[in-house]
């Protein structure tokens, strides 16, 4: 990674004029006609908030509350545990009624520990909000602490704790702070609306991030079709752009909003396969995260809500909602007028990388940007898969330059080593391959399955390696003890067998034995001085002790 860091030529601000391309990708139908024009509405306070302890990459937060506790809006209810973790706050006021496993937004319908708050409808804070921080005078570390306290994670989807990403700037010099506002998946418009309606806050959030990571340059990347958002950002910058923020439009090619793809488009550099953008001097943050940072530093509010696009032909009135974290999806759908008659599929996230869930009794977590409900007409069931004919259309569109047909071949035949050799783990699961596959093979499903298998296998290997190491250590310890004993014995034997040594040893042993006898005699003759006027009990004890000593001497 170090080589890559040095090979990254320092880009001057001007050099970002040019755009690069990444391999593959797709031009997808946008489906944003409705939602991109809908102003952000409030989804209100639901009767119940379900707050999963794990809404980010890393370790789950540790609950600080008990069932029955009254909580205020913005109160810290679970603290981060470990370096990669995030705080969790009550997104409205009410009573904690349970801390238990609940279904969460997960492709496999997983249950996970959640804090459940019955809201009181007052939505009240404990105190008046603190005064805005003057971030321009603050040290990067201090700012990071505030961001950490606010429980901010990447709102683009991955949910990486923001302070951890920002802390990279302490270790290596950051050339470019990249604000990702490229909503490349169809249907989703939450970032687009955020920029249109809250451009000033977004820009100020970006300035705070600039202060926190001290980059040489800063770009807000938006998509070609976001003219209104671009105008809003530019007019917000027009009042003063001392920190040199640039707004750049990138072509609408899915998945140009992927972190690695976007970095390639803007800089021409590739993030190393197993590395991070910071390895090549870049920190990438979602535009929604920038707004959350603004709230944390200026409004002094932790991350309590986010914008969610609720859309699809299965939703009566598609809209964008400012949603409290923990709001049930069912509540959000009800806010959007409920489902239409022929709704068939409910997706969390976009239509390319999102996952289908079987019910809507799950909470909106920090990383959910879209709820998509569709009918059979809009997204028919996938046709049955046919054999792969190796046509290579998947290779043409793969943004990671993989050979999806070969990966499928190996994943299908459970040849996991070969799949890994063909760089399975560089797959970003964007779904381009499956989208173009004329045989309708659910390729991404195969890759996910193979990855899971490999992880399970590695875990197992690690466990058995550990056991084997322990076993080997024990064997070698026993062996060592045996050898040492043998060595001692051999030494003794040698000492005994050598002639001169033997007589000397014997003499010394006899001498020592004589000395011992003499000493014991002296001890026995010696009369203790304090034996006058003893009680009968004491005398009996002394007699018993003498007897024991006598017995001991005899046996020796």
């Amino acid at each position, binding site marked *: 990674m170090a080589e890559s860091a040095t090979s990254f030529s320092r880009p001057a601000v001007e050099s970002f004029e040019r755009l690069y391309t990444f391999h593959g990708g797709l031009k997808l139908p946008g489906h944003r006609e409705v939602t991109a024009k809908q102003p952000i509405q409030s989804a209100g306070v639901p009767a119940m908030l379900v707050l999963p302890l794990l809404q980010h990459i890393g370790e789950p937060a540790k609950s600080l509350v008990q069932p029955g506790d009254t909580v205020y809006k913005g109160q810290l209810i679970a603290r981060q545990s470990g370096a990669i973790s995030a705080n969790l706050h009550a997104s409205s006021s009410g009573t904690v009624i349970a801390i238990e496993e609940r279904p969460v937004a997960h492709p496999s319908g997983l249950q996970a520990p959640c804090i459940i708050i019955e809201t009181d409808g007052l939505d009240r804070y404990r105190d008046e909000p603190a005064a805005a921080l003057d971030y321009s005078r603050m040290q990067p570390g201090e700012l990071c602490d505030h961001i950490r306290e606010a429980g901010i994670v990447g709102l683009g989807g991955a949910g990486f704790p923001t302070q951890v990403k920002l802390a990279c700037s302490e270790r290596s010099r950051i050339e470019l702070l990249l604000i990702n506002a490229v909503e490349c998946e169809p249907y989703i418009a939450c970032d687009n609306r955020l920029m249109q309606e809250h451009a000033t806050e977004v820009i100020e959030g970006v300035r705070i991030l600039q202060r926190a990571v001290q980059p040489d340059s800063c770009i807000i990347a938006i998509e070609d079709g976001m003219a209104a958002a671009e105008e809003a950002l530019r007019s917000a910058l027009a009042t003063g752009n001392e920190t040199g923020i640039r707004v750049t439009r990138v072509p609408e090619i899915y998945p140009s909003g992927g972190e690695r793809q976007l970095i390639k488009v803007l800089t021409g550099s590739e993030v190393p396969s197993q590395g991070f953008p910071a390895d090549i001097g870049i920190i990438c943050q979602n535009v929604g995260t920038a707004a959350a940072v603004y709230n944390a530093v200026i409004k002094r509010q932790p991350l309590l809500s986010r914008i969610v696009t609720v859309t699809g032909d299965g939703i009566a009135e598609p809209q964008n909602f400012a949603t409290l974290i923990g709001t049930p999806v069912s509540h959000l759908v009800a806010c959007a007028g409920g489902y239409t008659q022929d709704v068939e599929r409910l997706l969390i996230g976009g239509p390319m990388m999102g996952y*289908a*869930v079987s019910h809507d009794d799950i909470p909106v977590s920090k990383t959910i940007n879209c709820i998509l409900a569709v009918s059979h007409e809009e997204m028919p069931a996938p046709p049955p898969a046919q054999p*792969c004919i190796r046509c290579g*259309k998947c290779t043409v569109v793969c943004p990671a330059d993989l050979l999806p047909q070969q990966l499928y071949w190996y994943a299908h035949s459970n040849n996991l080593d070969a799949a890994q050799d063909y760089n399975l783990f560089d797959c970003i699961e964007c779904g381009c391959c499956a989208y*173009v596959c004329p045989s309708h093979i659910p390729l991404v499903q195969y890759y996910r399955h193979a990855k899971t298998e490999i992880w399970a296998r590695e875990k197992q290997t690690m466990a058995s390696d550990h056991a084997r190491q322990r076993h080997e250590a024990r064997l070698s310890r026993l062996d060592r003890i045996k050898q040492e004993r043998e060595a001692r014995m051999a030494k003794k034997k040698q000492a005994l067998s050598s002639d001169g040594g033997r007589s000397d040893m014997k003499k010394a042993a006899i001498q020592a034995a004589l000395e011992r006898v003499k000493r014991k005699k002296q001890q026995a003759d010696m009369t203790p001085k304090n034996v006058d006027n003893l009680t009968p009990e004491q005398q009996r004890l002394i007699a018993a002790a003498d007897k024991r000593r006598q017995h001991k001497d005899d046996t020796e």
Partner: protein
Amino acid sequence: MEFKTYSSPHLPVSGSVATMMQRVLIALLPGIACVIWLFGWGIVINILLASLTALLAEAAMLALRKRPVMTLRDGSALLTGVLLALALPPLAPWWIPVIGCLFAIVIAKQLYGGLGYNPFNPAMAGYVVLLISFPLELTMWSAPGSQLSFTDTLVYVFSGSLPAEQALDTLTMATPMDDIKTRLGLSETLSEMRGSPVFGSFAGAGWEWINLWFLVGGLWLLQMKVIQWQIPVGMLSGLAFIAFVFYAVNPDIYSTPLFQLFSGAAMLGAFFIATDPVSACTTPRGRLYYGLGIGLLTYIIRTWGGYPDGVAFAVLLMNMAAPTIDHYTRPRVFGHDR
């Protein structure tokens, strides 16, 4: 409410294998029309016989292998039949396309596991079996402009008898490539042959037009993204390159690159046969090498081999090399060093 769960991506898919095969068949039409125009109805009878055999054989094999028979609708068997028919002389007896298709579908395709699993191009495997087993029938090409009616052709194909006024040797004629080979054997030079009726405007008489129309169809396939450019470009440039080298050395005995490109099955092979994705290379760079290999081998077999054309053998030979080429031509993965 219970929703249906499927794996991502969820956007409806566009293409299908059947659409791809249909497009390939459509792209063959201009070339087929040109063959009919030049050589008469024989090719139509070939196509009908071959398609029917291929479809029946595929259906029977699918049933025997307990696979859904309607897999037939993917169109791959039909395409194999049509491609094999196009490789055969238009006046071949009826059992030629039948045997060829039976071998192609039953042995070269279904016994290996059906669509997607055959290591060799089925049409070419069937053709080569015919070429080796029945060399006489396979080299009796019609003369361009033959005027046999559809029914007369049908009668001839099934019974071998011609109308009284027609003689077989007026209907058939050696192909330009065969003719040149024979005359070169008699120490004639190419410049001496130039005035011969087997030469057309820039390549073999008639064949240049057939190749041109297959080229048009192939370009349409490229534009529709049914095939990718690497294999055709590789094959045609391989063929043109080696032809140019030898032509430059001795133009008296080696034909021009243009002649090579527009003779025999060059264009049909480059756009329709070598591009069979199942048996070809699958990496982008591998496909280029694969095409180059076919081009070079085609020239070598055409020039020094004992068969009328080299495309079929070249394709089968490169089929064998495909897995190895794929292994050594993996693309650089995003974020990896070379």
